[in-house]
């Protein structure tokens, strides 16, 4: 069991490691229930305030001029007519903006532009329309430079270079264990194939953006971000402000999916425009900018080799992965493709090599389970192919090989049995064992496929803090600096507080998303919010409860150890139920003295690895004449430890699978080879799934508390459900038509082209 570090210089309250576990089968009354979202009413009535809803007196609206070239030097910029347009209050560009370092080697407004969409200038005006009119009046001139748009051209020996050092971001990263060559020699069967994944666009319904307002030398920023503290740190650094003069607020969010896990240029541009104009400035990206300049999933090419003995025992796993990270190293652009090769299966001989490649396209950034989604498409198809080569059930091959320990770290998993149980749950719910393929109906063929995953996240990212304040009437305010990025974290975290405090949900208010109003919490990424902040809140609640019992001890003439709280009433052991005392009686007695609990998320266990795993099985129907792939049903089983709220977990699984269907079948950024222009930076040509594309999705609950991970036993579920969907669909398509498609997405075009050049089934 983890214990809080004894060497910490100062205790900030209760460390979560000191808490007793919520064991499997524990008698919990609020955690584990499908409580509706606490912010649900605000969202359905339009009351919830998103970044673009902010309206301040005198507020201006900003727009950004972007590079029309994939690679160019800015040679001339005349903003005079734009600045003179009535209603325009500020114009910023490399001509007048402070030289603020951005990315690793460029400036906020750099004169070298590296992709179509790179920021050239910005205008703040009294309306978006005036700002756009002003952009049209800017006279810009460029010296176009040679460019590269994809992995093949960027890696060619004589390729145009984005940087003097070339197009590789650092040296290739190599991981090795055992002896790959020996493992391949020992193999009875070897699968060697190359897989290609595409650039997917996050397409958060709420675009990136913010509103910046100054009060003297203090800045408030309402930003659509997954990390209010990281944005505060970055903006303060860029503007030379002390951190306590910058306040970042994010209350409700229409999706981030990783693309909002860092501070982007608009956070600083809006602040500078607001300073220049003396007015609040709102800078929301439009859909095109959203899809050009603030992230995408890195396209990959993965050469995979698997070796296995006749009985299916894996002897070798290798991948050479090239990943297209776009024009700038933004932080989080190099997704961890190798991880799943290193850890999903038990194998002594593993080699992974990863190259990160710059191209003149928009910068890549984390996208829901970054790296794992791309890698699972390749590895899990290769496993399927291996199973067929061995004449083994694909599920059986996986049962024989799945890992029960973290081989890269050399540590056991906290829940080594989880993946095996996910296999069983998914297989039973799907009816895998007895599945009979229906007879072909005309050109339509059915098929089934499965895929599994592990995910480095979900276990939490300590530290993180929370406070609990007990009000005079017995109600409670919980304060933490985390964010609810649309997942329902507000609700799940409130449930943890209410459970520990013994209060009904409506007696607890959770406050988050404001650097000025709560202690530090990390970025909401890595499926970490519930597992990081849940234990911190529980610790703060336990601290507050302990103090309440101490205060009550005198009034109730009972020792604190004898007290519990249920449904807002203090019960004393041995006393009749009807003698219970409402907590408000105690808090009113001691008011205005306020009980304040402080909680800290303690470290994760040092000797064990906390991960999340899962499996999905899908059935598809493929029309061999029209190339149409229809997903008929999806069964998912994922380990997220203790389920705090089954509705919220189901929501994440449904959302992740839906995004996985889009990734598998339609989503694909299209870049014109002649110009570098993104041709589908909109929701008309970039197809995300509609309700009609999404079949019934059944999420089977494992609900196995991970008692060693943290004292709530809960882990994250935000990212994992997306990982296995595309490979499961691809395996099912192969099962249906006998043609293996190793490049995403599986569009009609790709299916028909593959059928036209049908390869022999393997």
């Amino acid at each position, binding site marked *: 069991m983890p214990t809080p570090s004894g060497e910490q210089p100062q205790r900030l309250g209760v460390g979560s490691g000191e808490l007793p576990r919520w064991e499997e089968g524990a008698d919990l009354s609020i955690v584990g229930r499908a409580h509706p979202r606490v912010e649900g009413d605000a969202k359905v009535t339009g009351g919830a305030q998103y970044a673009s809803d902010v309206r301040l007196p005198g507020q201006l609206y900003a727009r950004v001029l972007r590079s029309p070239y994939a690679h160019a030097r800015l040679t001339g910029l005349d903003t005079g007519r734009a600045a003179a347009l009535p209603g325009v209050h500020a114009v910023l560009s490399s001509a007048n903006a402070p030289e603020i370092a951005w990315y690793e080697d460029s400036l906020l407004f750099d004169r070298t532009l590296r992709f179509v969409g790179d920021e050239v200038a910005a205008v703040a005006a009294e309306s978006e329309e005036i700002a756009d009119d002003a952009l049209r009046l800017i006279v810009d001139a460029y010296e176009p430079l040679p460019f590269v748009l994809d992995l093949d051209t960027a890696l060619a020996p004589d390729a145009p270079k984005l940087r003097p050092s070339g197009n590789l971001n650092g040296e290739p990263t190599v991981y090795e264990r055992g002896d790959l060559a020996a493992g391949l020699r020992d193999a009875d069967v070897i699968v060697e194939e190359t897989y290609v994944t595409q650039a997917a666009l996050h397409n958060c319904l709420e675009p990136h953006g913010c509103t910046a307002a100054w009060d003297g030398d203090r800045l408030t920023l309402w930003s659509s971000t997954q990390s209010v503290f990281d944005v505060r740190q970055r903006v303060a650094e860029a503007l030379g402000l002390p951190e306590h003069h910058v306040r970042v607020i994010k209350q409700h969010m229409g999706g981030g999916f990783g693309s909002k896990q860092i501070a982007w240029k608009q956070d600083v541009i809006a602040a500078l425009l607001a300073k220049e104009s003396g007015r609040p400035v709102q800078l929301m990206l439009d859909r095109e900018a959203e899809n050009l300049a603030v992230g995408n999933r890195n396209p990959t090419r993965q050469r995979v080799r698997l070796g296995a003995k006749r009985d299916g025992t894996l002897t070798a796993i290798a991948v050479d992965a090239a990943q297209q990270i776009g024009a700038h190293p933004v932080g989080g652009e190099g997704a961890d493709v190798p991880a799943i090769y290193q850890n999903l299966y038990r194998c002594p001989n593993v080699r992974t090599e990863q190259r990160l490649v710059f191209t003149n396209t928009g910068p890549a950034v984390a996208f829901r389970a970054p790296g794992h989604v791309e890698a699972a498409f390749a590895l899990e198809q290769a496993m399927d192919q291996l199973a067929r080569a061995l004449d083994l059930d694909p599920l059986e091959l996986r049962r024989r090989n799945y890992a029960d320990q973290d081989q890269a770290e050399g540590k056991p998993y906290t829940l080594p049995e989880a993946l095996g149980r996910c296999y069983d749950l998914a297989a039973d719910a799907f009816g895998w064992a007895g599945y009979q393929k229906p007879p072909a109906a005309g050109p339509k063929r059915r098929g089934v496929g499965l895929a599994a995953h592990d995910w480095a996240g979900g276990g939490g990212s300590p530290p993180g803090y929370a406070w609990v304040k007990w009000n005079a009437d017995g109600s409670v305010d919980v304060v933490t600096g985390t964010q609810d990025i649309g997942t329902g974290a507000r609700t799940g975290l409130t449930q943890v507080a209410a459970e520990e405090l013994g209060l009904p949900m409506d007696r607890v208010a959770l406050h988050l998303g404001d650097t000025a109003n709560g202690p530090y919490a990390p970025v909401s990424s890595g499926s970490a919010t519930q597992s990081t902040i849940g234990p911190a809140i529980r610790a703060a609640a336990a601290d507050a409860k302990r103090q309440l019992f101490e205060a009550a001890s005198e009034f109730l003439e009972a020792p604190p150890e004898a007290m519990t709280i249920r449904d807002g009433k203090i019960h004393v052991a041995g006393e009749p139920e009807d003698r219970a005392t409402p907590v408000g009686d105690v808090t009113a007695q001691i008011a205005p003295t306020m009980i304040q609990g402080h909680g800290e998320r303690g470290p994760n266990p040092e000797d064990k690895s906390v991960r999340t795993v899962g499996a999905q099985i899908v059935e598809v129907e493929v029309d061999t004449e029209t190339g149409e792939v229809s997903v008929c049903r999806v069964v998912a089983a994922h380990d997220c430890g203790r389920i705090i709220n089954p509705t919220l977990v189901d929501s994440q699984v449904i959302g992740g699978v839906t995004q996985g269907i889009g990734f598998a079948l339609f989503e694909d950024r299209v870049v014109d080879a002649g110009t570098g222009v993104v041709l589908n930076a909109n929701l008309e040509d970039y197809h995300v799934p509609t309700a*009609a594309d999404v079949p019934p999705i059944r999420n089977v609950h494992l609900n196995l508390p991970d008692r060693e991970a943290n004292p709530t036993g809960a882990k994250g579920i935000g990212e994992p459900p997306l990982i296995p969907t595309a490979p499961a669909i691809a395996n099912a398509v192969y099962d249906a038509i006998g043609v293996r498609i190793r490049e995403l997405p599986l*569009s009609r075009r790709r299916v028909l*082209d593959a059928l036209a050049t049908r390869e022999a089934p393997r």
Partner: protein
Amino acid sequence: MTMQPFAYERAASVEDAIAGLARVGGDATHTRPLAGGTDLLTLMKADVFAPARLIDVKRAAGLDSGIAATDGGVTVGALATLADLERHPLLVGPYLALAEAAGSAASPQLRNVATVGGNLLQRPRCWYFRNPRTPCWLKGGDGCPARDGENQHHAIFDTRRDDRPCVAVHPSDPAAALLALDAEVTLRGPGGERTLPLAAFFASPTDERRLETTLLPDELLLSIRLPAPPPGARSVYRKAMDRKVWAFALVGVAARVNLDGGRIADARLILSGVANVPRRATAAEAVLDGAAPDDELFARAADAALADAAPLSRNAYKVPLAKALIRGALADAAGMGT
């Protein structure tokens, strides 16, 4: 982007609207009529097109949204919405293709405001044409970047450089259905009304007329007339998209057959999504007429319809896709579908 500034007028009558259009000498870059706006406004928001003035014709006397039985046929006012067509009780049996085509277009929200007149007059969805960052011939430039570029959604007919300067496809679903129903359109300009077959209304763009229709800049489309169908005729529309709904056709097929004594008569087969304008497959119709319907016949008709196809670098898949849709549409129209 947001739209550039423009003037807005509401026309009280068709005469007013035409006078307004004619006032600028029929300069289509200056003044445009506005109905549902689902295409025009998106072009303006994309900065592809910036007219100085819009004349709103939605309440102009002389234009209407009526769908009525007339002389054995059906007359459709240009302002009828796609939603009106989708669920109108007259548009069944021989006219079913029109309801199916309207119902397969866009999203319910768009169908509630998009008019059939605007649908026929909409511009191509070519992503080079629609992107202000990529010049192209259809927008007044020189070359066609799609011809050797990302042409997976583009034409498979008349694609050689000598054939046509543009490889964009006409996006309308109802257009194919209306052509299969032998529709005529009535237009009105400063000189009065004219009626012409819909087939003559569509024409591939030329250097002088970079548009997909022959409608003059100071003319309005008033109505569409569907003549009385052959007795026993049935029609269908089949469409393939890159997802289940809410997308433009990769290929669409409108088919009409009239089973006369066990043999097909008056066959009509129109393809959308394959050429600058909806393409009538006359060679396939010739295969069908007079023949007894069966799968082998439908396959021969499909082959005949695609015999002249010349796909671009990325859209060869449209050939088998179109053939499959044709076979299915013909079987359904002949009452032999599964």
